[in-house]
């Protein structure tokens, strides 16, 4: 894409980009969705037609400039079209997390004052109706999937396709108005409003302008030379800024194709069928994939298992170097090629990564072991560091300079600054406009010169210019003896073990570190099956003595590895317990993007933390849980607490936290 086509070329909004794409790549696929077992596709011209019809339908329903349009549903072309249609009408799309409950939804609907709500299906409509009782602003509800909706009161509710038909029927009447409104959009008008996941409190509405989105998309697309031929799989929550940038911003800027899976459960199959060339996932997805691979290898035949182990060891040794184009001996290269033929190639194909040219992980720090696993297979997985407030990009790893312990160099157009306390600040064309209806927060986050505080502690490496993030600035602390406490560093190491799903490390201001752990029911369940261990519930499996032994060995291995780093050696886990329930967003213990809310956990499991530090060997506890249908119940359990072996600090030059 040539540079002179930027703002000066008239490309000042997403609808303007759409128009250009229709002209330039009108016949190329813009969207695909698997439905009824077949990949259905829409070209840019067809997509534009769908979007126009909906936009005119919304006009007919009385949408005004500046209205907020909430969009709730899984990744489907119709939902992406809804966002662009809203923009064409001069309204502002507000995608929401589809797994949010009615109370969370109520807050965001109320706060944004959305007049129009576009729902994916009956489930979302039900939640909206529940919230609507108290939210006055909501006027019209549209739904995409008709199923089960026949008996609802339709006085203020419409089927998405009926609205489109109405728009098409009235095109002669509505076209003029739509063209006027679309032409009014400029570089500084609001493009989208996205709610933060709310690790530390109520979600905030981040207002992003067309400038933010388009410049970020352009810079990042040029950084990785993305072209119109890319394929991406859109499967991450639409409410997340990452999905907006990849599936809308970059897709519209470069004209590549967005593929939507058939359902949430078929993501793995769809990934394999599409074989994306550009792939984006939070560490969680890579962890889950790795766990699946490991479980399946455990069940594989002896020969296959030995082949896998042998070649993976080789890949770990030379794979990353080969990927970075560093010199490697001829023998190693030959063996790697053989491994590619026998193991890496088929494995990548199974995972759906055969065609990946650029892969990114972000959202949270990824465990170095997990990161290296994928890179050693020859997948160009890189890290980036970003935020909703920055329209994703703050730092990115350039090809050939990828390391697990840094998050890369400042993205094009981004300035970085580290203040005296170690907190990272940035300023960029992607810097958000404001928090909606929250000038105080805006002022405390963004100073008058445009510098934004990230809330993360980090430093810039002098020789390479790469940024290294230590932890959330709030989470990094000191232990009682003054040594550094960086919980996430240890947690990520623990989570590398397929058996461990989640870990929460405590230790700020204490004389030792302790941990809560969650087992991964898939991995441990599979192991239990192979070892003839019967169990009736998650709780029973989690408390099984053999499971405890296994987890203990993982904790001790982690300690051994943590001890290698002189700076963080104090973070070794002295005592741990395996929680009786999985940490869950429905119980408020995690955000919808599955980040642990530390303060909630500290409050909720205070008795268990006390037990960890008072030397008890078991502790009785009761915990309130929310079931899927909203009822509440209590789980009672007596948890075993174990001591883990710790190791003396190594005096080699270690790797600092990431």
């Amino acid at each position: 894409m040539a540079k002179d086509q930027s703002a000066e070329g008239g490309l000042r909004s997403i609808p303007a980009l759409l128009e250009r794409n229709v002209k330039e790549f009108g016949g190329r696929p813009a969207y695909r969705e698997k439905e009824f077992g077949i990949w259905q596709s829409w070209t840019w011209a067809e997509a534009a037609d769908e979007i126009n019809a909906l936009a005119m339908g919304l006009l007919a329903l009385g949408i005004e400039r500046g209205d907020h349009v909430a969009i709730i549903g899984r990744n489907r072309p119709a939902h992406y079209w809804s966002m662009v249609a809203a923009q064409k009408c001069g309204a502002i799309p507000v995608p929401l997390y589809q797994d949010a409950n009615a109370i969370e939804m109520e807050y965001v609907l109320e706060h944004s004052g959305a007049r129009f709500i576009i729902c994916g299906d009956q489930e979302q409509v039900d939640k909206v109706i529940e919230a609507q009782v108290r939210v006055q602003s909501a006027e019209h509800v549209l739904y995409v999937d008709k199923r089960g909706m026949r008996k609802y009161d339709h006085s203020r509710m419409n089927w998405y396709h009926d609205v489109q038909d109405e728009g098409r029927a009235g095109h002669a009447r509505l076209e003029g108005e739509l063209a006027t409104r679309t032409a009014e959009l400029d570089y500084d008008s609001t493009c989208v409003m996205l709610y933060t996941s709310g690790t530390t409190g109520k979600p905030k509405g981040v207002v992003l302008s067309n400038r933010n989105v388009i410049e970020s998309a352009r810079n990042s697309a040029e950084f990785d030379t993305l072209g119109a031929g890319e394929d991406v799989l859109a499967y991450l929550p639409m409410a997340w800024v990452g999905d907006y940038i990849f599936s809308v911003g970059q897709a519209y800027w470069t004209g590549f194709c967005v593929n939507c899976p058939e359902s949430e459960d078929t993501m793995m199959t769809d990934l394999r069928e599409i074989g994306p060339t550009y792939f984006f996932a939070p560490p969680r997805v890579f962890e889950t994939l790795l766990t699946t691979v490991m479980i399946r290898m455990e069940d594989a035949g002896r020969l296959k298992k030995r082949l896998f182990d042998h070649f993976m060891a080789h890949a770990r040794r030379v794979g990353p170097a080969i990927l970075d184009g560093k010199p490697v001996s001829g023998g190693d290269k030959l063996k790697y090629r053989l491994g590619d033929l026998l193991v890496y190639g088929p494995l990548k194909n199974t995972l759906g990564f055969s065609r990946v040219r650029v892969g990114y992980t972000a959202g949270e720090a990824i465990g170095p072991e997990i990161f290296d696993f994928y890179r050693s297979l020859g997948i160009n997985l890189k890290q980036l560091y970003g935020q909703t407030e920055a329209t994703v990009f703050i730092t990115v790893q350039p090809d050939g300079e990828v390391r697990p312990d840094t998050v890369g160099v400042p993205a094009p157009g981004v300035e970085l600054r580290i203040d005296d306390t170690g907190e990272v600040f940035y300023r960029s064309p992607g810097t958000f406009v404001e928090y909606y209806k929250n000038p105080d927060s805006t002022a405390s986050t963004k100073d008058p010169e445009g510098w934004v505080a990230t809330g993360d502690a980090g430093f810039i490496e002098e020789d390479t210019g790469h940024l290294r993030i230590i932890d959330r600035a709030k989470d990094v602390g000191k232990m009682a003896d003054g040594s550094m406490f960086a919980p996430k560093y240890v947690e990520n190491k623990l989570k590398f073990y397929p058996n461990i799903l989640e870990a929460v490390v405590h230790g700020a201001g204490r004389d030792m570190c302790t941990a809560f752990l969650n087992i991964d029911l898939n991995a441990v369940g599979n192991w239990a099956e192979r070892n003839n261990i019967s169990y009736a519930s998650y709780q029973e499996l989690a408390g099984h003595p053999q499971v405890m032994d296994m987890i203990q060995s993982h904790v001790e291995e982690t300690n051994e590895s943590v001890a290698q780093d002189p700076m963080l050696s104090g973070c070794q886990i002295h005592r741990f317990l395996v929680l009786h329930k999985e940490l869950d967003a429905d119980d408020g213990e995690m955000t919808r993007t599955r980040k642990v809310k530390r303060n909630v956990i500290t409050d909720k499991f205070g008795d268990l933390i006390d037990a960890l530090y008072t030397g008890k060997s078991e502790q009785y506890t009761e915990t309130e849980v929310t079931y899927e249908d909203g009822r509440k119940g209590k789980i009672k359990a007596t948890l075993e607490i174990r001591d883990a072996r710790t190791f003396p600090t190594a005096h080699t030059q270690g790797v600092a936290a990431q």
Partner: protein
Amino acid sequence: MTSQTAQETTQDTDSFVTPDGRTIGGVIMEMKNITLRFGGVVAIQDISFDIREGEIRAIIGPNGAGKSSMLNVISGFYVPQDGEVWYHGARRPRMRPYQVAEQGIARTFQNIALFDGMSVLDNIMTGRLTMMKSNMLQQALWFGKAEREENAHREQVEKVIDFLEIQNIRKTPVGRLPYGLKKRVELARALAAEPKLLLLDEPMAGMNVEEKEDMSRFILDVNDEFGTTIALIEHDMGVVMDLSDRVVVMDYGKKIGDGTPDEVRGNQAVIDAYLGVAHD
């Protein structure tokens, strides 16, 4: 959720509108004085009831009451010694199971009867077997008509898969599925036949609460979206009372109650059968 206001009951005395806005049509099947014996055992004794178009009709009763036998009579699998089965206004002669299927009646079984070694997709495709017109040779050669026909059938099957939300197990062998999903696949196979009358033999047996809720929703959706008439046997009283429009209660092969869930709930004979009654 607000339901649409019930329309005025139409002139046709045969049909009426339920409180939630569905139209229940005239009688499509009528059982007249059915008696079924196995040697000396009388499984069903002189039972009569009808099934109306578009309704969800439940048959309940304690163990051994003869419910499954009744369903087998409806599906034509058992032929009663006495009594008549009337379907669409005509007395039904003795028929083979495939002929019953061709008449638009499909069923599921209490003990799942699927092909374990076949994929979910293939299992559901068997539901459309009676509609396939190409012969074995054409199918083996996969040429012309056979190919077109299978594509058309596959399309219909995919709609059912989408409806029951089992896309993720499309290619999984049925033998590897958990019980609750197998039940759903069985329902899918029955639906693939596009039945007018769907017979469900204990669709919720052995399920946990969540699976029961899912299954209830599917049953209601099938009835609502396709207008399929449903006759079901079920043990879970809560489910029966929530789902069905009318209930037949059986005990020891006899009919002891028939009516709306509320009427049946207040019936003394039904209460006695379920809660037991003191014997002198």
